């Protein structure tokens, strides 16, 4: 969907939900007045994180990270304890590549947030390592209260010189000194989870409660 098609859907009052395969190219042409006049959920993963973060920062719009039908009501998702602890905050984030690409270019403040991280493999582990290093070095994760790690598509069973995806993720996330909950059923091909709403990350009990 290009910017013109997305704007058409944003303006169409009969459209109540937009399933979007987005990218950075639509950001500079978004019809923000249409979003404010008739806010509607945008559902997607990957490059759609660009749109979620932009519209959250500019309009406060809640996006949905995932694919498929939106589930109403609060969600309880079970993961795996990586770093124990319990925190409350607004769930923000999404696909790692777009998050790092927005550093210095419109990424909202993550201070006080629970950071959601998912991903898609386009290269190897080095790319994930570069992206996480960038976010941390830029100070973009300052004030993050906890991290919810979802699904990284394409990395199942992937090992490079004895390192797996989880080795790269924990190598960085375990240095943040906040609770980390891994292996959550969120991300590409997983049911949508709202972004920009209150959440409780209980990494000790391995449960993320959203909404």
């Amino acid at each position, binding site marked *: 969907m290009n910017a013109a098609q997305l704007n058409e859907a944003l303006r169409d009052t009969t459209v109540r939900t937009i399933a979007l395969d987005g990218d950075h190219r639509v950001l500079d042409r978004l019809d923000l007045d249409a979003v404010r006049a008739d806010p509607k959920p945008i559902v997607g993963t990957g*490059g759609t994180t660009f749109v979620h973060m932009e519209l959250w920062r500019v309009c406060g719009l809640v996006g949905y990270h995932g694919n498929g039908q939106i589930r109403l009501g609060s969600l309880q998702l079970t993961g795996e304890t990586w770093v124990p602890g319990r925190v409350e905050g607004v769930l923000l984030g999404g696909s790692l590549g777009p998050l790092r690409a927005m550093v210095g*270019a419109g990424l909202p403040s993550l201070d006080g947030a629970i950071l959601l991280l998912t991903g898609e493999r386009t290269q190897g582990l080095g790319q994930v390592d570069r992206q996480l290093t960038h976010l941390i070095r*830029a100070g973009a994760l300052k004030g993050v209260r906890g991290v919810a790690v979802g699904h990284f598509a394409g990395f199942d069973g992937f090992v490079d*010189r004895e390192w797996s995806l989880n080795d790269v993720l924990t190598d960085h996330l375990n240095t943040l000194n906040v609770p980390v909950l891994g292996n959550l059923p969120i991300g590409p091909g997983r049911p949508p989870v709202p972004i920009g709403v209150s959440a409780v990350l209980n990494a000790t009990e391995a449960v993320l409660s959203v909404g």
Partner: protein
Amino acid sequence: METLAGWGLRPELGKHALDRRGFMAGSDEDRLADLNDALRDPGVRAIVAATGGAGAYRIVDGLDLAAVRADPKPVVGFSDISNLHIALWAATGLAGVHGCVGTGGRTDESCRRLLFETEPITLHAEPSSVTVPGRATGVLVGGCACAVSNFLGAGLPHLDGAILCLEGPQNPHFDRMLWGMLRAGLLDGIRGFAIGDLIGLDPSVAEPGPDQAMTVIRERLGGLGVPILGGLPFGHREDQVCLPLGVEATLDAHAGSLTADSAVC
């Protein structure tokens, strides 16, 4: 090492150069310690990376900048070593050499010239679809595109007065990077662009083709009103010509040449 010794130098291997941790050559602490030892050692006159330097971006904030300012010496390397070049240039204005040693031919010869001679070096471009005519003078900054993206909002200053050098293999997010640089205003006041070997596969490009990175450059940079010289022989190619960084250069897109000061003076 043989090539360097053949130039009359006494090469010393870093203590941890042959270590291994996952896809990197040892722990961050050990790799950083090797690098800072070399930066502080007055007997060391240049630091040469043997290969790409995976994970160099992880240690850039630990570099001993006081040692660099007290005794500047060039770092030679490319690919992930571009992270060191950018970090050191941004913090101290240090000059470096984008390239490598030991593969022979014009690569070794251009590296030797940049380390031993003070005469300017000229790189000649092959015809390229991204070239935008004009002439510009500025400081050469950049290197591997994927290293440049590591510094957006994380240490890369505004590039006014600079000529941005870009090369790199298989970068799936090249368009995103240029979008981010433009959105952040980092390219305001840029003097020109020097494009090396840039073979990209970018799924977000509007008109896909075998030269997608070139399409991205035309779309994002072609209308900025500054010269672009494509087809320069630096980058991830077998016979790359070494390029000095952090030095003054003149880019002449009519003549197809980039003439830069040496890495030493």
